[in-house]
């Protein structure tokens, strides 16, 4: 299998002087599910956000599906539409209905006609179990429902990669499961996923590889078994003992 994401020696320092990423290198295979863990401030969200260039990098290269996104000449809109992103705070468009949230980018970015876009949207809303709410506005939904709509919105672009940025962190505990279930079924279908999460159960069950970050660096990469039962670094063991 080939690498769909290649991250080569990237660095990122924020204007306030915080070094968020220091010489990070990581490859992700097509169809692979990679979970990134680490304490808050370890740079894991920043790493995820550099993949679709919501954050630029100071140094290094990121190649997505053969296209170097860190090259300033690359047109980002096309490649961004191939990378779905799910945010901690859902970021649904509050002035649009659930259905419009899922169809808008299909129509204006992918240039699908309205009918086709709506068919795709309803199919995906069905898949995430929220088709009956297609006509309501996001604020009328619970957090878990909103996040599932956000996943459907990202999937509607038929992305090659899905990024999850702490997708369950802002949810009430009883709603975490419904979102994780959607993510699990996506993983089973063979979607390439990079997931930043604190849900160790999900990491154990679904991921092929776990990446542990600390202070802007990748400290350890391994399968769930090695990471959870046989961590090499002291920092990872310490992190796991705090979180588990």
């Amino acid at each position, binding site marked *: 299998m080939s690498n769909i994401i290649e991250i080569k020696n990237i660095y990122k320092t924020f204007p306030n002087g915080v070094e968020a990423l220091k010489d990070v290198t990581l490859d992700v295979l097509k169809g692979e599910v990679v979970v990134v863990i680490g304490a808050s401030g370890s740079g894991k969200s920043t790493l995820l956000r550099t993949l679709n260039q919501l954050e630029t990098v100071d140094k290094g290269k990121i190649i997505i599906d053969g296209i170097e996104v860190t090259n300033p000449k690359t047109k980002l809109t096309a490649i961004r*539409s191939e990378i779905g992103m799910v945010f901690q705070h859902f*970021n649904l*468009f509050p002035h649009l209905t659930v259905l419009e949230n899922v169809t*808008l*980018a299909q129509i204006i*970015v*992918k240039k699908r006609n309205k009918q086709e876009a709506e068919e795709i949207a309803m199919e995906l809303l069905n898949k995430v179990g929220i088709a009956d709410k297609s006509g309501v506005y996001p604020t009328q939904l619970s957090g878990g429902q909103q996040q599932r709509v956000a996943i459907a919105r990202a999937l509607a672009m038929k992305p090659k990669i899905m990024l999850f940025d702490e997708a369950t962190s802002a949810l009430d505990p009883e709603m975490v499961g419904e979102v994780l279930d959607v993510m699990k079924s996506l993983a089973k279908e063979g979607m390439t996923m990079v997931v930043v999460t604190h849900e160790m159960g999900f990491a154990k069950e679904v991921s092929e590889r776990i990446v542990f970050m600390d202070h802007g660096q990748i400290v350890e990469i391994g399968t769930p078994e090695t990471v959870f039962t046989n961590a090499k670094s002291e920092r990872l063991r310490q992190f796991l003992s705090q979180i588990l």
Partner: protein
Amino acid sequence: MSTKKNALLWNIAYVIVIIGIGYFIYVSSSKVNYIWRWKNVPSFIVYKAHIDIDSPVKGIVQDYKDHKLYIKTLDGKIKIIKVEHPEVKKGDVVDTTDELGYNEKYKSGPLLMGLFMTLKISFFAIIVAVIIGLVTGLMRISSNPLLKNMAITYIELIRGTPLLVQIFIFYFFIGTVFHLDRLVAGVGALAVFEGAYIAEIIRAGIQSIDKGQREAAISLGMNYYQLMKHIIMPQAIKRTLPATAGQFISLIKDSSLVSVISITDLTKAGREIITSTFSPFEIWFTVAFMYLVLTYTLSLFTQYLERRMAKGE
């Protein structure tokens, strides 16, 4: 229940206070030596005009019924002419251009004409001001220093000088250089002035939108234009609607200042009437009331819009 009862009492108190103030104004105004001529005022808004009707033909008046004159012409045909108040009788011989009588027609008085002018100026100024405000507001938050500094300079210049002075500059300087009609100069000055305020409102509105909205939109592949058009502006406009409407109301009121460059708006119409009638009290009260009708209508309309747009949030 008791709070409801209290509210009713306070509302009654409000009505009493208003009546009291009205009575105080009445009493104090009756002490000055001033003759109120309210009955003249309506004719400055609408009046009945006499329109003389001249005979288009030569002939003899045959009959008058249903406000119509029947005139038999020399070649025997009957000509029917609508005249509400005839000044000729049956059997009269009329020549072409002889006056047959007059019709009455309602015509706009100077105050109503002035009101239309104020509406016209405000309408065009609002449109131009919104365009200027949108463009400048977007320039103001641009990362390009040229655009940003241009916007800041414009906003600071306009907000730091009085509108009256700007109108004079616009009319006497810019208007002379570019041969602008006084109406264009008036609308231009108002639009440029209010545009600066609208720009700041729009800037604040855009900046108030959560940055997650932008991130979600661009991560779906939207470009800057699509992001602004479909995601940011609809939310920003909704959020700034009350402030924008307030600015429109300001614009309508500020438009009274263009009367200084001889545009016969509501204020100038009022001044002209006063010079011929010497009834300043009635006219100014009427002018104020007419402005209030405009601004209050706009305010009601905005409240309706806000209620309609409130869905979904």
